[in-house]
């Protein structure tokens, strides 16, 4: 049976060119970038080239990029690192109800450390309003975090407007851009972001690397203590091969960005049209104007999402429900719960997400199989 992967928002395959770009750093250029010899210098050059390229790709400068183990660490470093370093200036933080757990759970940790956190509501499309954030700002607010694009429903947040609101307040602005990176055009100056977090494995790079953009001059505590890597902001020997792979992945993503967007729009249309033709009732979750084109979240009224996912898997179609469920916990997705009160809608939602290696034919097959399974379960 052919397996069709429609879960690129969870993680994505490493692009063959990325794999090639990484190889030398495992074979011949394996040195430690901190070493003073030839091997060290070769590794350091690879690391610096990656940092330089990635910095430019978002309008940042070289020293503003800190490589981390991934998106979660980057989010934690910004949120926890900054808040703890500035707790004497204020104990109030603002975020939204639809953030990734890498952000939400960092805030929950800070609440235990004595911070007060405001979780801003979203509308039925999952959008945060900049006015709502403005209303919540206080004298003692030191950090605001709002994601760029939502990983579950694809809604793009008005980050530029939020950046503008915050430009007149002392609070710094952090945005989790993990899901939007490589798909949307991102310029940290335009957003007026102070921190921005990204990950490689969502854009056909390797797992185990991400970065935090931290605007020059910002002071924050590290999460890891040890050597002087990343200008003492992130100790530990750098993952040079992964950084080189990350660079290549960004190169490819930037080069193909417009084509990919067009292709994903096409896939989206195939799924929706197929379901309509097959007379399958569905509802789209998320904003239908400002959305990440590679994410399509649909609810099938009356269908049990557990059965649906398992049946699709057995048919060779890999999709996911809002949030990964462990050991059968059915906490409905916090994102869908924040968007609508109708619990049945969040209990019947699945996410299709597109990426490298898919074909129109695959998407069509997957849509037909989805229709088939939904029909069977509707009985």
């Amino acid at each position: 049976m052919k397996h069709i992967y429609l879960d690129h928002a969870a993680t994505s395959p490493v692009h063959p060119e990325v794999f090639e770009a990484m190889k030398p750093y495992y074979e011949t250029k394996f040195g430690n970038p901190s070493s003073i010899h030839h091997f060290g210098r070769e590794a350091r050059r690879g690391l610096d080239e990656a940092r330089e390229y990635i910095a430019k790709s978002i309008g940042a400068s070289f020293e503003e990029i800190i490589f981390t183990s991934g998106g979660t660490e980057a989010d934690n470093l910004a949120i926890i690192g900054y808040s703890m370093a500035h707790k004497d200036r204020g104990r109030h933080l603002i975020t939204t109800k639809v953030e990734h757990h890498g952000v939400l759970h960092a805030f929950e940790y800070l609440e235990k450390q004595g911070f007060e956190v405001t979780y801003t509501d979203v509308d039925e499309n999952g959008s945060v309003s900049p006015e709502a954030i403005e209303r919540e700002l206080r004298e003692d607010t030191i950090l605001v975090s709002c994601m760029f694009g939502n990983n579950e429903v694809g809604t793009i947040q008005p980050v530029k407007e939020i950046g503008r609101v915050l430009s007149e307040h002392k609070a710094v602005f952090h945005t989790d851009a993990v899901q939007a990176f490589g798909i949307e055009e991102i310029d940290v100056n335009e957003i007026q972001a102070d921190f921005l977090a990204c990950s490689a494995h969502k854009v056909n790079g390797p797992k185990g690397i991400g970065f935090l953009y931290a605007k020059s001059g910002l002071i924050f505590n590290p999460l890891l203590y040890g050597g002087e890597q990343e200008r003492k902001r992130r100790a530990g020997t750098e993952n040079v091969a992964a950084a080189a792979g990350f660079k290549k992945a960004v190169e490819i993503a930037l080069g193909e960005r417009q084509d990919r967007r067009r292709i994903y729009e096409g896939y989206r249309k195939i799924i929706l049209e197929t379901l309509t033709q097959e007379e399958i009732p569905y509802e789209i979750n998320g904003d239908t104007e400002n959305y990440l084109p590679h994410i399509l979240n649909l609810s099938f009224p009356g269908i049990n999402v557990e059965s649906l996912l398992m049946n699709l898997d057995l048919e060779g179609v890999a999709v996911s429900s809002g949030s990964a469920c462990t050991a059968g916990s059915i906490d409905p997705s916090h994102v869908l719960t924040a968007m609508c009160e109708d619990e049945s809608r969040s209990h019947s939602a699945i996410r299709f997400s597109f990426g490298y290696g898919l074909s129109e034919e695959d998407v069509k097959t997957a849509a037909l199989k989805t229709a088939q399974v939904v029909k069977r379960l509707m009985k």
Partner: protein
Amino acid sequence: MYETTEKRPEETRVVVGMSGGVDSSVAAYLLKQQGYQVIGIFMKNWDDTDENGVCTATEDYDDVIRVCNQLDIPYYAVNFEKEYWDKVFTYFLEEYKAGRTPNPDVMCNKEIKFKAFLDHAMSLGADYVATGHYANVRRSEKGVELLRGKDDNKDQTYFLNALSQEQLQHVMFPIGDIEKPRVREIAKEAELATASKKDSTGICFIGERNFKEFLSQYLPAQKGEMQTLDGEVKRHHDGLMYYTLGQRQGLGIGGPGEPWFVVDKDLERNVLYVGQGYHHPALYSEGLVADNVNWINEEPAEGEEFRCTAKFRYRQKDEPVTIVKTGEGSRVKVVFDEPQRAITPGQAVVFYNEEVCLGGGVIDEVIKKD
């Protein structure tokens, strides 16, 4: 309900209910060896997340994942917390409230494992569900018969007595004809990750916790008097629901003579009766009336009387009895050949004809010698 067809193993999809224990691991392993299309599913029926966020279900599911990956079969987890609460736990509390000692495992098999889970498996295109129960099924012209497991010590038909034909039609018990020590051996030989895992004990949702403490979270306890049958007040009890007939532990009555036992309960007056000696006459009865009786194959006609054996508790040896179908719905009268000790309302009474489990019911009344 669902169609069953004779198919070759390779074409037969079997969903195995996997708990993360050795029995269900071996059940899945044997089916896979026999060439079936096997899918492992972990059921989460109870949320036992503690104050540190630790949940044993997560660890058990991790074991299911390890075994399924060893067997190269797909695995999933399903959640029946709501169904379990509504159908099993509510019943469990109601029975305790009524002063009885319920058996939640019988209800769990009837309503969850062989209903909610079976339905779910069928929605995945399964032909059968399999579990790691020590029991067997025999498909004959009479329909499906439920037979005792080969390991007499482990036989679990007692808990399966409430299953219907429709349910049993889709059931496989791959380890029913194997003895427990051999099951462990098979797990070791196959190097299954759960080969040396300790067997779980007690009622699943209570686990190793203190039963009294657990129950007190859900039901208000009313203290009362502990009396002898002559009305002498010995001590106070903590609430009738905490005691079961024939119980010795936890009474706290000292003094000379034989140890004290719970011999009766008076729910209306909230009195716990105690008596001295394991064989206290008040603990003995001549028969019982069972309610909600399920007959797996043939249902006896009204007024019919017949001989068989019965178990009143799990792991007790069979006792010869005469069954009288009284004609009041699903009630039967069970007359013992020999007086029986500590027959407990709420527990299951299960009937057997040699190896065949005929069915069973819930003990409703105890018939004592006048």
